[in-house]
């Protein structure tokens, strides 16, 4: 269980750092200005560098995984979005993949029963959990844009309104807060509960889940329980987005915990599996047309390989070929 406790311990340790640092050592400048700037610089440049690093590597072959009928004879119906042959069809395939996790939707669960019997069942839980997690995350990030603009952008207002639909407590309760915590709980428990998942999971799989969970929990605490005064927070965020190095005002230590963990996430992102956010767009088995017989795909480093020519072959077998009445080039 070291693989689970280690990352959990790391996250708890990281959460304590800013609390102690701000509360007892007066390090609000470090945690409110220096670390966030560093972390977000690393995120932006790290992410771009990783993308460039992938993009500069060639795609020598056209290797889409075809999950439907290819384009062939006119009267055979092509499955355009599972076996695309045109660019726009690829774009649709990618949109389905990125926005709705098309491939995860296919998921099945195999079970081995008595007397060598295999059974497959539809298994959409991972798809659902993943979708809820990612979409909630996106809505929450977009909701937070209200902190970065003097005038709250329209979309943030709409999102906030819709997200706070279940207006049962004060302040309005955000559905996505509950959804993302539920999704993370599910994503952690499936790694522990399923024998296969437990075996394949690494510390680097638990760490980001715990980290994001901690960020959400602290955020929720700040909003609903240990209320943090919003105005100085927004002031500080506005300063940061304007690249100001002024010291932050009086803000509760809990905010620094939230903010520091977000900074850790940003810092960690480009070095980790979280880069799947960029990789998903570049996968050569998904983002290429299945038309390599129709249109030649060029390999920039096409290796120069010497093969055994017909002439060499005939030289070796001429007599045998003549005896078998096979035509030969040279007598």
């Amino acid at each position, binding site marked *: 269980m070291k693989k689970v406790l280690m990352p959990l311990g790391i996250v708890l340790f990281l959460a304590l750092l800013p609390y102690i640092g701000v509360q007892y050592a007066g390090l609000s400048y470090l945690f409110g200005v220096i670390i966030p700037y560093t972390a977000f610089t690393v995120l932006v440049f790290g992410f771009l560098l990783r993308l460039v690093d992938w993009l500069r590597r060639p795609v020598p072959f056209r290797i889409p995984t075809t999950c439907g009928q290819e384009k062939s004879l006119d009267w055979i119906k092509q499955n355009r979005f599972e076996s695309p042959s045109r660019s726009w069809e690829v774009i649709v395939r990618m949109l389905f993949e990125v926005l709705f996790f098309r491939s995860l939707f296919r998921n099945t669960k195999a079970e081995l029963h008595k007397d060598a019997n295999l059974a497959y069942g539809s298994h959409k839980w991972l798809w659902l959990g993943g979708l809820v997690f990612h979409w909630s995350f996106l809505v929450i990030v977009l909701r937070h844009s209200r902190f970065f603009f003097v005038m709250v952008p329209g979309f943030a207002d709409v999102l906030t309104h819709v997200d706070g639909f279940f207006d049962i407590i004060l302040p309005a309760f955000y559905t996505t807060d509950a959804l993302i915590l539920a999704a993370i709980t599910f994503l952690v428990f499936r790694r522990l509960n399923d024998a*296969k998942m437990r075996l394949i999971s690494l510390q680097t799989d638990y760490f980001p889940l715990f980290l994001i969970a901690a960020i959400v929990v602290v955020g929720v605490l700040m909003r609903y329980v240990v209320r943090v005064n919003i105005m100085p927070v927004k002031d500080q965020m506005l300063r940061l987005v304007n690249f100001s190095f002024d010291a932050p005002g009086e803000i509760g230590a809990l905010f620094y915990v939230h903010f520091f963990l977000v900074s850790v996430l940003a810092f960690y992102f480009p070095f980790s*599996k979280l880069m799947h956010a960029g990789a998903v767009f570049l996968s050569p088995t998904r983002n290429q047309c299945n038309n390599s*017989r129709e249109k030649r795909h060029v390999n920039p480093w096409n290796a120069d390989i010497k093969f055994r020519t017909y002439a060499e072959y005939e030289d070796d077998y001429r007599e045998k070929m003549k005896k078998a009445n096979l035509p030969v080039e040279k007598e």
Partner: protein
Amino acid sequence: MSKYLPKLSELKKEFDEKPSVLKGDYSPREWWNLPVEFRDGNWCFPAKPEVLDDLGFANPRKWAATDEDWQLPSGWQKTISDGLHSRLRKYRSLKLFLDACVRCGACADKCHFFLGTGDPKNMPVVRAELLRSVYRNDFPLVEKILKGFSGSRKLTEEVVKEWHMYFHQCTECRRCSVFCPFGIDTAEITIMVRELLNLIGVNNNWILGPVSNCNRTGNHLGIEPHTFVQNINSLAEDIEDLTGVTVEPTFNRKGAEVLFITPSGDVFGDPGVYTMMGYLLLFHHIGLDYTISTYASEGGNFGLFTSNDMMKKLNAKMYHEAKRLGVKWILGGECGHMWRVVHQYMNTMNGPADFLEQPVSPITGTRFSNAAATKMVHIAEFTADLIHHNKLKLDPKRNDHLRTTFHDSCNVARGMGMFEEPRYVLRNVCNSFHEMPENTIREKTFCCGSGSGLNAEEYMDIRMRGGFPRAHAVRYVKERHKVDSLVTICAIDRASLPPLMRYWNPGVSVYGLHELVGNALVMQGEKKRTTDLRENDMAGFEDGGDDEE
């Protein structure tokens, strides 16, 4: 019973009793602490020294996987490390697939080898981690500070043994990549690791033997030109005996319209030869102006299972020969991995084929625009088009003695997307056709368990396990619909499915699609046919019966 294979009852007992993560039993150890054990039936004989000499490959020696010391060449770690880095530079796929995985587990129970062995290292995610863990070791600093954090490890001889075992328990079938949310294709990883292993002389004779043969004689089986011709001519004689029709294939003939290339298994192996007879009957039936080459006498390409350079080298013969003979286009026979190479690699590697013309069916006038650049047409497309235009005289009743199901071959399914054409042909040449369950066909099809050069006798244990999910799906239609004939469009299937069926589903025979076409074709001038191409009695055509045609 082969000494490389447990009795079916023993294997079933193992399935029932041995704990496995597949059945939900927690593994007591992390995967990197699980031992690698070679025993009879789970390793392929290594390539013979003379084969390696012939190919100019590294480290020829006599050795066995069960040896303690594998006699790796000095500096092998550097060879692997340099080889990996140069491939990371050349293939975005490799780099991306090593970086992108989040270990979500969607692929875990999709691999036929995992379903048949329960071995956790056969989960595609772990198979890739076998390489990833070494690749990640490039950041040793993180690992030092947080020991075990990223799951990285050093490249040791144990790791090489593990790679050899598990990258030969992957048939490059791509089923996992269908389910992966990032499209990570374990086949790409396996291809690369096999390339790396070949650099240090860790290899498989069942792959490199055919590669060497193919390079020298033009085909995997090492058939020399005169024997190749003799063999096809003897099939022509069999056709004459059975049907009274004389088919006259030509060889290495310049000026033919079409060059026909099919796997050499169709020329030499049972039941592939019956598929070959089907082709010959079909071409005669429509009067196709075609020729067969003894030089480019192999459709398959075991280079795909060796290295991309070798794939290119062997594949180059197709265009080279088509150019020499001056044909207009190439027609390809039924084969799985051959078509992965032709469809996704050939034109990139050895094209452009500007000396050929865009394929046009001389019978129907159909332009194969989907093959406009590669100029090579699949026989199932070609025949489907003929049937659609009503150009074939078919009597599907002649296959009434067969109750069929169709096995999608991995490579034409997931590396090409050909699903409807063979089914259309099959429905038109036989009356009884039942699909296997939907999770086991089309893009979700299961491998025969012996693809990618694992068809060796000494590998029977692993092959029968790897083929178990396919066999189980056949059992389903056998029990429900009395299916007794498994039809496929792959030469490796035709070689590997018969033993799989004998083991798991006795009574089910394996057929090539065009064998059934050959049965159903009503040839001009034929004598009364009472048996199929295998000389099995057809139903309702018995001697003395007055069945009208």
